[in-house]
C-alpha cells in the first residue's frame, strides 16, 4: 500500500507512539513570533524550564505589530528579543530586518521539503508549499516544541484536491483557493491535510503555491501540502547548492517525500478551474465566496494589499500593473504592505513603490498590521475593506468592519473604482457566465 507525502514525513520523524493514534514527531523547525511566543516563554520560565532544544532550529521574528504601537506590544517584542539573545537564537528578525513570518522564513531558505515545522500561528500551513509538514499549534505545544523539539499529531488523513484545467488571464492562485474553500466549506478538511495536486499546481511558482497552502486552514485543514518538484528546488537552490551537486540530485533526494501513486486518501476531489472567474468573499466566513462580477458596486473604504497570503513580490507586480498610471478613488484609503524588506526593496528597484505612491497608496513597512486589525489600518465600525488577506471573520480588521477577500489584481482595480470590480487583466469575461 502506497503512502502519502505526509505519511512519509511522519514516518521519518516518529519519536514515539505513546497511545493509540497519537504520534510524537521530532521537529526540524520551530518558528516564533511576538504575539504567541511570549506567553510560552513566560510559562516555561515560571516552570523553571527556560531552555530551548536547539537554537539553530528555532527562528523568530517580530512581525505582527512592528514598530510596536503601545506599551503592551512593546513588551511582547521585548520578551521575544531578550529570549532570542539569552538563548543565542541567531535567526531572529527584528525591526529593519523583519517581515511577515510566513513570507520571511521561506525567503531565507528555512523551509525545505520533508521538514516538520510548527508555529503558534494558524497560517503556518503556508510552508506546506515546499513539501514540508507545517502546522499551527497552541501555546502548550509551542512550549514543548521550544523545550524539547517534539510535537504530537494524530494520524494524518489526507484530502487530495486536484486542480486541473487552464486558468484564464487575470485569474490567480487566490481565486483558486477561494474556489476550493467555497466548494469544500470552512470545515471541509477539518483534521485533515490538504494535498494540492494537478497540472495547475504543478505549473505554479512558489509564491502561488504559498498563496494556496496559506489558506488551507480556512477550510479547517491542519495543513496544506504540495509535492516538491523542480520549481521547489530552483527556489531553494541558492540555499542548498553546497549540499547537492546538482538540482537534479536535490530533487532526487526530496522526491523521497512524494506521495505514491497508490497512496490512500481519506477524501479526493477534482476542481477544474478553466472557467473560473475572479472571486471575492461576501460575508464573515471564508467560504462565503462569489464571483467579483456579482459583487460589483459594493463600495469600499479601504483597500489593503499585503499579508502572508498576497504580500509577495509577484502580488505587488500584478497590483502595480493594474494601478499603473491611474489614481485610486478619493473615497478610498489604499494601503500596500510589502511582506518583507527584500520584497520592499525589490519593489522599489522595479519602480512598483512609485506606481503605488503616485496612485495615492500609503506604503507601509513590512508587518501584519491591519491584517489582524492590530495596527496600520484598523477599520472603524461600519467600514468596508477589500483585502488580499486570508480571513474575513467578523471584526478581523477592526471591530464592526467588513472584509472582502480577493486577489491583488481585484484589490487594485477596486481601489481605482472605489467599489468591488474586476481588473482590466481579466479579459475573457464573455466566456464566463454566472456559474456560482
Amino acid at each position, binding site marked *: 500500500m502506497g503512502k502519502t507525502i505526509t505519511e512519509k514525513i511522519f514516518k521519518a520523524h516518529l519519536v514515539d507512539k505513546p497511545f493509540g493514534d497519537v504520534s510524537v514527531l521530532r521537529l526540524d523547525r520551530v518558528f516564533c513570533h511576538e504575539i504567541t511566543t511570549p506567553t510560552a516563554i513566560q510559562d516555561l520560565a515560571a516552570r523553571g524550564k527556560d531552555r530551548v532544544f536547539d537554537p539553530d532550529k528555532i527562528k523568530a521574528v517580530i512581525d505582527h505589530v512592528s514598530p510596536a504601537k503601545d506599551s503592551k506590544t512593546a513588551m511582547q517584542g521585548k520578551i521575544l528579543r531578550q529570549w532570542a539573545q539569552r538563548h543565542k537564537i541567531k535567526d531572529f528578525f527584528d525591526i529593519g530586518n523583519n517581515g511577515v513570518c510566513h513570507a520571511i522564513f521561506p525567503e531565507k531558505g528555512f523551509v525545505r521539503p520533508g521538514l516538520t515545522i510548527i508555529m503558534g500561528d494558524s497560517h503556518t500551513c503556508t510552508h506546506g508549499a515546499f513539501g514540508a509538514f507545517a502546522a499551527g499549534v*497552541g501555546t502548550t505545544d509551542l512550549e514543548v516544541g521550544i*523545550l524539547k523539539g517534539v510535537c504530537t499529531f494524530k494520524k494524518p488523513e489526507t484530502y487530495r484536491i486536484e486542480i486541473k484545467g487552464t486558468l484564464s488571464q487575470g485569474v490567480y492562485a487566490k481565486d483558486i483557493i477561494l474556489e476550493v474553500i467555497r466548494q469544500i466549506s470552512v470545515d471541509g478538511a477539518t483534521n485533515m491535510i490538504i494535498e494540492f495536486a494537478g497540472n495547475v499546481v504543478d505549473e505554479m511558482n512558489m509564491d502561488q503555491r504559498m498563496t494556496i497552502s496559506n489558506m488551507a486552514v480556512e477550510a479547517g485543514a491542519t495543513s496544506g501540502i504540495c509535492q516538491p518538484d523542480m520549481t521547489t528546488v530552483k527556489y531553494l537552490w541558492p540555499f542548498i547548492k553546497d549540499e547537492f551537486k546538482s538540482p537534479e540530485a536535490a530533487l532526487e533526494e526530496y522526491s523521497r517525500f512524494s506521495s505514491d501513486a497508490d497512496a490512500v486518501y481519506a477524501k479526493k476531489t477534482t476542481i477544474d478551474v478553466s472557467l473560473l472567474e475572479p472571486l471575492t468573499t461576501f460575508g464573515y466566513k471564508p467560504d462565503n465566496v462569489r464571483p467579483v462580477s456579482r459583487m460589483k458596486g459594493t463600495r469600499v473604504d479601504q483597500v489593503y494589499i499585503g499579508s502572508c497570503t498576497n504580500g509577495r513580490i509577484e502580488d505587488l507586480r500584478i497590483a502595480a500593473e493594474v494601478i499603473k498610471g491611474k489614481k485610486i478613488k478619493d473615497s478610498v484609503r489604499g494601503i500596500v504592505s510589502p511582506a518583507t524588506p527584500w520584497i520592499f526593496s525589490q519593489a522599489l528597484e522595479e519602480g512598483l513603490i512609485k506606481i503605488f505612491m503616485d496612485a495615492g497608496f500609503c506604503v507601509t513597512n513590512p508587518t501584519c498590521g491591519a491584517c489582524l486589525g492590530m495596527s496600520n489600518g484598523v477599520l472603524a465600525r461600519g467600514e468596508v475593506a477589500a483585502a488580499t488577506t486570508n480571513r474575513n471573520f467578523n471584526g478581523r480588521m477592526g471591530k464592526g468592519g467588513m472584509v472582502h477577500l480577493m486577489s491583488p489584481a481585484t484589490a487594485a482595480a477596486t481601489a481605482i473604482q472605489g467599489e468591488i470590480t474586476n481588473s482590466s487583466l481579466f479579459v475573457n469575461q464573455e466566456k464566463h457566465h454566472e456559474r456560482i
Partner: protein
Amino acid sequence: MKEFKGKVLCLDRSDINTDEIIPAKYLTEIEKIAMKPHLLEDLTLDSFSPEKDLKDIGVILTRENFGCGSSREHAPWALEVNGIYVVIAQSFARIFRQNMYNCGMLAIDLPREKIDSVFEFCRQGETIVSVDIETSKIQVESRGRSLELLFTISEFDKALVRSGGWVEYADKNY
C-alpha cells in the same frame, strides 16, 4: 497532579464559546494570572453574574460543544487561574478538550442522562464533585445525597493529567 474536587457551577447552555470564556481583548496578556478577573465575563446566560457565581468554584457543569470557537489556550488558562480544573459536559469542541488535558486538567464528557442527573443535584443546593482518574469515577454530593458516575478517559490523557500537563510529560519523557 492537580486535585480534582470542588463546588460545581452549572452553566445550563450549549455552545459556550471561547470568546465567552475569555474575551479576545485579553489575548494580548502575557501572564496567565492577568486573565483571572475576566473569566466568563461576556457569558450570555440569564441570572449569571461572574463576580458572585465564580466564588470558590472548582468544577463547571455544562451542556454540548463547550469551548467552541477559536482554539485559544487562554480559555483553559482562565479556568486554571481561577482554580477550576474540571469541566463536565455533554460534549466539547475538540481543541478545547485537548487544551484542557495539555494543561493537566479534565474535560469529561458524559451522556445526556448523566449530565441531567448532576444538574438535578445542583438544583437541590450546593453540590461538590470529586473526580478520581485512576478509578474513572465521579463522586457527586449535595445535602447528604450522593451519586457515583463512571466516565472514560484515554490512557494518554490520563498520563498527561498525572504529569501535570503536556509540558511536564514531554520534559520527562523525550
